[in-house]
């Protein structure tokens, strides 16, 4: 699942997978702005067949948190 999420992130943030930092979170990635955050959420909802609550969406600002909400 982690690889799949990073792949989606790479597409949404227009950033090659190899350029991702160790610790993947909004603060560490320049292109992770509010609009792309929503694009990311929409792609994740489609890929994992989920529907997140607004409170969750606001919290999903790092790879670890995203994984925990998908699980």
């Amino acid at each position, binding site marked *: 699942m982690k690889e799949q999420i990073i792949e989606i992130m790479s597409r949404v943030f227009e950033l090659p997978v190899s350029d991702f930092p160790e610790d993947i979170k909004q603060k560490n990635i320049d292109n992770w702005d509010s609009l792309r955050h*929503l694009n990311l959420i*929409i792609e994740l909802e*489609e890929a994992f067949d989920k529907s*997140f609550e*607004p409170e969750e969406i606001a919290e999903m600002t790092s790879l670890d948190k995203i994984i925990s909400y998908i699980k």
Partner: protein
Amino acid sequence: MNNYIYRNYTVEYLFSTTTYFSGYGELSLPPKDFDNIILFYQLGPHKTPEQQLKEIDEIRSKIELLTNQIKDRRIIIITLYQELNHDWELKNRELSTAINYFNYRFLKSLVTENPHIKVIDINQFLQCQLIEKIDWRFFFTSQMIINPKLAKSFKEWFYNQLNFITLKRKKCIVLDCDNTLWGGILGEEGIYGVKLGQDYPGNAYKSFQELLFALSQKGVILAVCSKNNLEDVQDLWKHNPNNLINDAVLSAYRINWENKAENIRAIAEELNIGLDSLVFVDDSPVERGIVRKFLPDVVTPDFPLKPYGLVDFFWNIYNEYFATFELSAEDLKKTEQYKEILLRKESQKKFENLDDYFVSLDMIVDIIPISESNITRIAQMTQKTNQFNLRTQRYTEEDLRKKVLLGSHIFCANVKDKFGDNGITIAAIIDENEHDLFLDSYLLSCRILGRGIEKVTILSIINDLINKTGKNIRAEYIPTKKNKMTQDFLEEIGFILQEEDAEGVKKYIFDQSKEIDIKSYYTIRRR
């Protein structure tokens, strides 16, 4: 293609990444040259029907203002959604009626008066979508006006529509006869023997002819190019009552045994129109192939394999090559009547410039000192505001409380106008020490940008503090990736640049003697 979009909701995800967007509801003229100016305003689906009715007026004023000011570029207006609104009364559907009126009368009258204005009907797209048109989660969290899951298909549809608008319209259809305007071959079946009439397949050809006839009444030129004996065809025109496409409707015809490419060229010359204004309709793939090869400028669509496909075929051609928003003389007369009705309504004032419009908004800015009731919002704004933010300092509520204890002056401001209350959208933090004041933070939600509010508010706060403390104020701009829009803001409100370092951090001191031109659109109240 270079597009600039005026909008009042979040729509960035619906357009290509090269598109430029105004602020929410912002009306300043576009900063550089664009091919298309797109006006994408929608009613707030969360609002009461009464509020939405008012919003229609507001949108109309904005559109009138923009179309009055932008005369030299193509303006594309997107219609209002129709299905998402609710009316209190089932019998008297006030809101639905107003939306309809707006879409199909008001916009139409604009298009009639201004050839550079086009309309794209978003309802055409939404009607075909099977999933929810709005996802309320994304509407309430991000003001997304269309379900983001529809973004991909919207993009596709929209850019198709755009191509379609920018395409040159065709002027003339050139038609074959046998197995195109009627079934069978005239030379073999005779003028009454061809299939044209009540039963299948004759009724399909008849419908096709009726549609073509109606199209000719809309101003599209019809011509015939057929391999036949001229006398036979003229005989049919004269005697077969089911036939509608005859020399009374046709502007030109070439009925002979010559090469069709040559005939079509001759028709274009006779009508004095370019080959690229022609659409050629023929059931024979061989003839189509010849025309495609020798006259590539002529559009030669594939012909339906079965006569029952003719109606769809007609509308496909129509929609692709002939559909316009242009109106006939009769429609024009109707539009005149609508316009009178529009003028009679008092609230529908026309605004010739931005100043008049702003004055009419009755904008009120309430400047409010920090308190328990707004501290959460102020902290949240420092965390979230990226674009209009001079120093991008992030604070928690705790940090703000500490600052207050250390003598900082913290304010927020609430902006409202006749269309509603925008809530707290501005925050300012000013530190004070024994020598002077320092503008630690000034930030503003993009929703209210572009009306000069950002200037009057901070000037009012600063001047008030200078009077109270007798101290002057310093300020600073720290560049980030996102706050470029504020890089010259301090100069604009009367600060003097003192130094700029290698990272682009600029330090300023306020010039109290400088007169700043402030428009009197606003009422500023202090609490």
